[in-house]
């Protein structure tokens, strides 16, 4: 079998006029993914040189929902865009040295861009479905490759800017930048192909976004969550998976508050005698699903006052979980002091279920779900 030549591809749909139009939307999706991804990454960092805002309560829910939705929308866009430029993979190498080197550089940048783009969408989609068929750390690899993708994207735009400007300035059927062999009509018109791409892209969002947009729940047949669960909130990690069932239900359970030498151990029954508050707060997961719940419990600030923790202090929250990257999390001063931040004991009027973090869990506004620590055993001043 011999490799095809660029001239073997004759469809006039494989045109820069189509590529640039699809690429424009694809670029915007990647940019939204990048920015919302940076927000999510920063929110999960233990150190916040600039405080992450606790308001609006739905902030993270929206940015992370956008992150996963624009990623889904990018799948059809990327596939169609790559389809339109596929013949360029088989272009003849240049003969002279300077063009040869420039061509090799461009091919290299495209290789990085395609590898990074496919990697981000594939790992992101798998992660949303909690499927981890790899051995690298998802968070650090997805973060590193996002810089690769955006960097290679900017280089690509820099290289192609004159062509992009030309073809976007004229009608989509214009042939100025077409390859000489791309003359045969395709099954669709170029407008038809673009419309099908937009339908695919919007469709990709509609069939998945119900995991975070309640209105779409019924139509999102491919959503990773239907939104149901104890108290109307789905669960990410069960008590059984975290191996906390015995410790969480043990009569000796105490919540331990620590401020240097001052400590206080409180039973769940005593927690229930402290002033109770109810807050409507979402659990918004990095995987893109979210659901709002009516949480009841004690203000974290009230608990910190019991051991004299001054305002603005970062505290460390420890879970009964023996292992796992989120066994301990940092609750930053601005969140700890927020009156909406609760050590929740109930959800939707019912005692917290084991899977939702019984005996007690942290729920704070505008925060990634992984930081809403469940099965809390200890809250201490971070040293």
């Amino acid at each position, binding site marked *: 079998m011999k490799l095809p030549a660029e001239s073997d591809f004759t469809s006039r749909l494989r045109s820069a006029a189509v590529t640039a139009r699809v690429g424009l939307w694809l670029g915007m999706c990647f940019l939204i993914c990048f920015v919302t991804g940076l927000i999510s990454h920063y929110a999960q960092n233990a150190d916040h040189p600039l405080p992450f805002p606790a308001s609006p309560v739905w902030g993270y829910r929206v940015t992370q929902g956008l992150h996963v939705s624009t990623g889904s929308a990018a799948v059809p866009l990327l596939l169609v865009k790559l*389809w339109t430029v596929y013949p360029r993979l088989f272009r003849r190498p240049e003969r002279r040295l300077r063009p040869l080197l420039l061509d090799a550089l461009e091919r290299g940048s495209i290789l990085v861009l395609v590898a990074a783009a496919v990697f981000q969408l594939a790992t992101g989609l798998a992660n949303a479905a909690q499927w981890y068929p790899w051995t690298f750390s998802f968070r*650090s690899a997805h973060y590193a490759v996002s810089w690769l993708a955006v960097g290679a994207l900017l280089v690509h735009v820099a290289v192609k800017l004159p062509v992009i400007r030309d073809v976007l300035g004229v009608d989509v059927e214009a042939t100025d930048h077409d390859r000489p062999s791309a003359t045969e009509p395709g099954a669709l018109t170029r407008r038809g192909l673009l419309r099908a791409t937009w339908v695919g892209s919007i469709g*990709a969002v509609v*069939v998945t976004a119900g995991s975070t947009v309640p209105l779409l729940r019924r139509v999102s047949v491919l959503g990773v969550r239907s939104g149901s669960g104890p108290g109307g909130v789905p669960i990410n990690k069960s008590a059984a998976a975290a191996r906390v069932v015995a410790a969480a239900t043990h009569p000796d359970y105490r919540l331990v508050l620590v401020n240097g030498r001052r400590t206080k151990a409180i039973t769940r029954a005593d927690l229930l005698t402290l002033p109770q508050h109810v807050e409507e707060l979402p659990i918004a997961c990095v995987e893109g699903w979210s659901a709002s719940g009516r949480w009841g419990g004690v203000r974290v600030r009230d608990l910190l006052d019991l051991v004299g923790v001054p305002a603005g202090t970062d505290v460390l929250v420890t879970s009964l979980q023996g292992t796992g990257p989120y066994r301990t999390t940092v609750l930053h001063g601005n969140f700890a002091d927020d009156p909406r931040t609760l050590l929740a004991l109930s959800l939707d009027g019912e005692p917290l279920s084991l899977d939702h973090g019984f005996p007690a869990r942290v729920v704070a506004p505008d925060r990634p779900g992984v930081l809403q620590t469940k099965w809390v055993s200890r809250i201490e001043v971070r040293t």
Partner: protein
Amino acid sequence: MSTTRWCLGLLGTALAFYGGWLLLTRGHDLGNALVWLAAGVVLHDGVLALVTVAVGLAASRLLPGPARAPVAAGLVVLGSVTLLAIPVLGRFGARADNPTLLDRDYVAGYLGLVALTAAVVGLATLVGSRRRRR
């Protein structure tokens, strides 16, 4: 080259190198990440693109004229949604201890999408061929 392009290109190069450095130093299992990066390119350029060409050729030979455009549009939509559906159709992340995860009948949902696409494609073909006859 204009200043804008130089600036974009240099900024992009810097960001990409930063990403590469992060990958080298914080990726934990760099070998596996590189395999995944390469696999995406190979699977697209070497498999998916060829399948698309083959499907396109077959469709253009087998399908009657009025059906071609609707079927092509339908395949663009359904093809990408199919790739998107792989993780949930396979239920690879499902866990016995967590019934709230992957808690839909994804096969039924997917077949519903196939049926919906087929219906729209069929309708568009019918309307298209009637218009031609006039």
